[in-house]
């Protein structure tokens, strides 16, 4: 009996420790006292010097937590138990969080410098009138190639990916929206299409891409392109910026017939404790010098047009990251298609993955 009680006690103790540890972990992530500002952001997505500068200017102590996917961030905040004062989700996730009442409506009277932002990055469908979010960085989906294997100009459009010359040499990002989207775009359709015939055609067209596909991978694309494992890859501009920095043979192309325009915007979750600090941070990041410094450090495109003016021309004149208005015109932001169409996109994508050469 004694041993039995011991065993029972042990199981209870294990459960107890797990619950306690979980509680502690949750508390640790997003601890706030009056003076602390808790920022929940992607890994390595702000110049650390700016955090120091912000702390010096405002007197807040910044607690910096990172996430590696929108879904992870969403789940964490949704679960509760956290009190991040600020997060930086992508646009489709912002739309979803607005739908689910997870975000604080912004008080625009407390925000200074919103007019520094380029008009074309404001008042977008996912957040009309920027009631809930302020643009942080933006970017595109495009093609990166290595000039050792691919001549300049050989790839300019999505259609070029299908060229027989690239047999078994294209790496794709592992995302249903992205890959279905590029196929839709290549046929002149919207990447937010909910037209079943268009989707079926796009999926059909993807099957013909199979002989050219070397692999469908995620973050590893960066490593593979730098190591020259593959000559062509479809990836996001942000990732591309890092690859270009590491390997001078790499070039990034934005197909001008249309592609995805994405945003990472600053939001204040409902659960925030220190909203004052959050507004202070928004205003801090809207200041052109700070935005410029951050953009130079991270390598992504800043939506702050006053900041762009402060940055070196070699960066801002680069069509790869600051494309012409003509190109911009054809870009689309992902809309929330609803669970049903997300399912359809994913099923097509799964079929494409399973399609063998």
């Amino acid at each position: 009996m004694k041993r039995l009680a011991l065993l029972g006690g042990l199981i209870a103790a294990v459960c107890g420790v797990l619950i306690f540890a979980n509680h502690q972990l949750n508390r640790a992530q997003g601890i706030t006292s009056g003076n602390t500002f808790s920022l929940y952001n992607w890994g390595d997505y702000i110049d650390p010097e700016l955090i120091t500068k912000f702390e010096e200017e405002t007197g807040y102590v910044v607690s910096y937590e990172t996430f590696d996917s929108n879904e992870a961030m969403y789940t964490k905040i949704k679960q509760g138990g956290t009190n991040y004062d600020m997060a930086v989700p992508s646009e489709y996730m912002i739309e979803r969080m607005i739908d689910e009442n997870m975000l604080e409506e912004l008080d625009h009277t407390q925000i200074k410098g919103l007019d520094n932002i380029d008009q074309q990055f404001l008042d977008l469908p996912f957040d009309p009138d920027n009631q809930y979010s302020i643009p942080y960085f933006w970017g595109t989906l495009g093609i990166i190639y290595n000039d050792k294997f691919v001549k300049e100009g050989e790839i300019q459009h999505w259609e070029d990916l299908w060229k027989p010359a690239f047999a078994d040499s294209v790496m794709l990002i592992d995302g249903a929206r992205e890959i279905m989207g590029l196929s839709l775009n290549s046929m002149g359709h919207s990447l937010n299409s909910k037209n079943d015939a268009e989707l079926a055609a796009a999926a059909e067209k993807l099957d013909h891409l199979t002989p050219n596909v070397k692999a469908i991978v995620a973050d590893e694309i960066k490593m593979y392109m730098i190591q020259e494992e593959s000559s062509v890859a479809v990836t996001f501009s942000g990732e591309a910026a890092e690859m270009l920095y590491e390997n001078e043979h790499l070039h990034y192309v934005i197909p001008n017939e249309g592609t995805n325009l994405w945003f990472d915007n600053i939001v204040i979750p409902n659960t925030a404790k220190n909203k004052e600090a959050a507004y202070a941070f928004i205003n801090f990041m809207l200041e052109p010098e700070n935005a410029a410094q951050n953009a130079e450090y991270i390598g992504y495109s800043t939506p702050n047009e006053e900041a762009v003016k402060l940055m070196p021309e070699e960066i801002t004149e680069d069509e790869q990251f600051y494309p012409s208005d003509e190109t911009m015109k054809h870009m689309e932001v992902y809309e929330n298609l609803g669970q049903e169409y997300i399912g359809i996109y994913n099923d097509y994508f799964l079929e494409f993955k399973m399609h063998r050469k």
Partner: protein
Amino acid sequence: MKQNKALYFVPYTFWLILFVIAPILLIIYQSFFNIHDDFTLENYQTYFQSGTYLKMTLNSFWYAFLITLFTLLISYPTAYLLTKTKHKQLWLLLIILPTWINLLLKAYAFIGIFSMNGTANQFLSFMGIAPQQILFTDASFLFVATYIEIPFMILPIYNALEELNPSLISASYDLGANSWQTFRRVVFPLSLTGVKSGVQAVFIPSLSLFMLTRLIGGNRVITLGTAIEQHFLVTENWGMGSTIGVFLIIAMVLTMLLTGEKKKKGAIR
């Protein structure tokens, strides 16, 4: 006294219910809901009608079968030789050692070896052969998966062979059998328990491998695990994910039944 003994099963049963039975029931329950939260058999219908999922299931079985086969082909002789070596414990430790290393780290190590500029291709070019595409092929996927699963196959086989009464082998020789006959008629049949548990330990996890399918297979190899991951993390269609999970569980139960211990009577020839 008897009641007292039954009480000892309470914590064990409690544990089982909490961490095995309950999750399985939850998965089954979940599988009856579509994305609109209706109670329906829709997911099962999709599974059987789409073709994609059936093909994926077949794919999973095929790759799991290949991985298990290769693992077995390598592990059996290794385990057999191992029982004959002098420093068994040391060799065993060396074989177990890699299992302490994270799967992802091992996968990345293989990326380093198999990539275009990797060790393998450097060796090939040293031999005067042009670099080959090694990563993202079936061969590399099977190679790495087999490599990772080998310890889980060697250990049970090794244990079965170690437990084998050496006088049975002497008896076989004594009765006129040569080495091969002894192996075929005595050693192998008696190590089958080890082979079976090895097959279980390799086949079942291989059915749902998904990290390797992306990292080494470049998503050119799709298993049920990939689909489950996608349904839970991307489309958030937990119902469909659970449905695939249910089939995975069924597959596992079948494997267990097929390789499980049967009470045997009568002759085995």
